[in-house]
C-alpha cells in the first residue's frame, strides 16, 4: 500500500485552517492580565489540594489504571520463552 502524502497534507492544512479561523473568530472571555499572587507564587500546593479533595476519586482510579497498564505491558512485552 502506498501512502499518499498530498491528501494527508491537505487534510492537515484544512484542519489547522478551520481550527485557527475558529480560534481567531471567537471572542474569548479572558482576563487581560494573568493573576499573580505574590504571597504564593507556586501552584503546586493548589494542584495538590485539588487532587486530594475534589479529584480524589479520579486520582485513585488513575492509579489503578496505571497499575493495570503497567502489568499488562510487562506481560505483553515479556514474551513467551522465559515464562
Amino acid at each position, binding site marked *: 500500500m502506498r501512502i499518499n502524502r498530498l491528501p494527508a497534507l491537505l487534510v492537515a492544512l484544512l484542519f489547522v485552517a478551520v*481550527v485557527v479561523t475558529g480560534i481567531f473568530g471567537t471572542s474569548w472571555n479572558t482576563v487581560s492580565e494573568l493573576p499573580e499572587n505574590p504571597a504564593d507564587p507556586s501552584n503546586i500546593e493548589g494542584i495538590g489540594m485539588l487532587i486530594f479533595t*475534589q479529584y480524589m476519586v479520579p486520582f485513585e482510579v*488513575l492509579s489503578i489504571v*496505571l497499575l493495570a497498564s503497567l502489568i*499488562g505491558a510487562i506481560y505483553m*512485552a515479556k514474551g513467551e520463552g522465559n515464562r
Partner: protein
Amino acid sequence: MTAIPLTFYLGLAALLFSIGLYGVMTHKSGIRIIMCIELMLNSANLNLVAFSSYTDTLNGQVFAIFSIALAAAEAAVGFAIFMAIYRMHDKINLDELNILRW
C-alpha cells in the same frame, strides 16, 4: 504581568495537533504513529493549561496531569503491543500487518 493572548496558545496547540495528525496519516511505522499520537495529546494538554491559566482556576492543570498519566499508560501498552507483534511477525509497519483480519 502582561499576558500573551490566549489565541496564540490555542493556535500553537492547533499547529501541534495538525502536525501530529499529518504524521498519523502518513507514517507507516507504529512507533512513529504512537509518537504522533503523543504530540496530539500534548497539544490538548497545552489547551487545558492555557484555559486553566486564563480563567484563574487550577482544574485544567489537574486535568492535564491526568491526561499526561493516561498518555504514559497508553504509550506503555502501545509499545508493548508493538514489541510483541515484532517478536511474532518480524514486522512493525502497519500496512503489512493483517493479523486482526478475520
